[in-house]
């Protein structure tokens, strides 16, 4: 078969369809992963001891378990206890749980880095504890957490490929199907790899710009900017 025909008529259209699914997976997981991360970090740092323990245990369990096993539990395991999710939903749920746990660690690190005096000062101005967290601590902490959160976002792009293992035909899966059907393993996976490299490289540049855009003049960065 002609190389050009294979590339433009078969491989690229398949990969673009897969890419759409990959982007859907990321778009559906990332915002909830961030929200979960913030909630868990705040809960662990400022919550009632029981909530704090719950948040700590959640992070402990998720960080200890391979994401692939978590996906298997959600997709193959949950039906046996009466909860059936589609493969796409199970993937998103797995990514949110995983992304949220890692995000929580970065956000908690940033929360700790904000000096305690700020909470005391905010409370002495008459703010409630919740108001102080929301309007004084978090706006600073989240900015400091951006490099870590960006790295996690990049990990999310890469680990979205694991959805293929529970039958979601996203970018890697699309590449695998073409590779198996036309026996073009090196070419197909190289093409898949290039798409991921482009995605990841664009994201790296974008988050570095974002970090500069939201920076408050005069505040120092806690961690160096994201690299891949």
């Amino acid at each position: 078969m002609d190389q050009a025909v294979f590339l433009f008529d078969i491989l690229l259209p398949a990969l673009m369809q897969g890419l759409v699914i990959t982007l859907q997976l990321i778009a559906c997981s990332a915002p909830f992963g961030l929200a979960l991360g913030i909630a868990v970090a705040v809960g662990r740092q400022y919550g009632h001891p029981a909530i704090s323990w719950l948040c700590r245990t959640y992070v402990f369990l998720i960080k200890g378990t391979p994401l692939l096993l978590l996906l298997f539990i959600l997709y193959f395991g949950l039906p046996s206890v009466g909860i059936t999710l589609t493969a796409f939903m199970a993937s998103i749920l797995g990514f949110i749980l995983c992304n949220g746990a890692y995000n929580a660690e970065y956000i908690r690190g940033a929360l700790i880095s904000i000096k305690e005096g700020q909470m005391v000062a905010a409370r002495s101005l008459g703010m409630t504890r919740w108001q102080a967290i929301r309007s004084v601590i978090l706006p600073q902490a989240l900015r400091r957490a951006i490099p870590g959160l960006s790295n996690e976002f990049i990990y999310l792009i890469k680990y979205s490929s694991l959805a293929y293992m529970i039958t979601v035909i996203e970018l890697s899966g699309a590449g695998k199907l073409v590779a198996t059907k036309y026996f073009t393993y090196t070419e197909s996976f190289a093409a898949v790899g290039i798409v991921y490299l482009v995605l990841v490289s664009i994201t790296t540049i974008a988050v570095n710009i974002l970090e500069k855009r939201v920076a408050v003049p005069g505040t120092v960065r806690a961690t160096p900017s994201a690299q891949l």
Partner: protein
Amino acid sequence: MDILPILIDWSPYILSGVASTLGLVLTALGLGILLGLPMALGQVYGAWPVRAVVGVYVWFFRGLPILVLLFLFWFGIFPAIGLGHLSAFVVGAVVLGLRGAAYQSQIFRGAIQSVGEGQMIAARSLGMSKFTAIQSVILPQAMRIALPGWSNEYPNILTDSAVCYAIGVVELLTITSRIVTQTHMTMPVYLVAAGIFIILNYGGLKFLHGLEKRVAIPGFGTGAT
């Protein structure tokens, strides 16, 4: 049916899965140091072509998902260069190691660069060659600084090793799936596997943190974190 008899029945297989997973992780970690350290040195002290090659290597291996790397090497690159006879275990360990080297090189690079430049100048002015200075002045400090960051590679590689399931390496997750298929005990078996991974994860980390304390020099650096 109860989970406990099943676990006892299958315990030799589960243990072989654990051994296989640990084999993957330890090979990958070792390969990662073996390649990552020279890469870091090359990136700090090397000429620009060396720096460029290492830079591209790191960009490539950190930019691709582990699943795609495994597929690419297992189905594509290794058979194409005549290494198609390698077992899935070897390919899995090598790919995890090659990828680990990319991450580890950046940990080592940061550590080497955090040792003040003045030390190299001082060592050279005492008559040491560049190589001797790196070997006896820079690296003993840099490796200790790198250790906490390096310890975090262990859980990363451990959790990624499960993806080797995709190319048919018979590691813990593969064994788990087989037990699930055979016994139809889905959730309990998965949860036990998760428990084993968690124990391996935090047990290994505990060992590494102990190591950090053992090799720490009193009063040097920030110490174990």
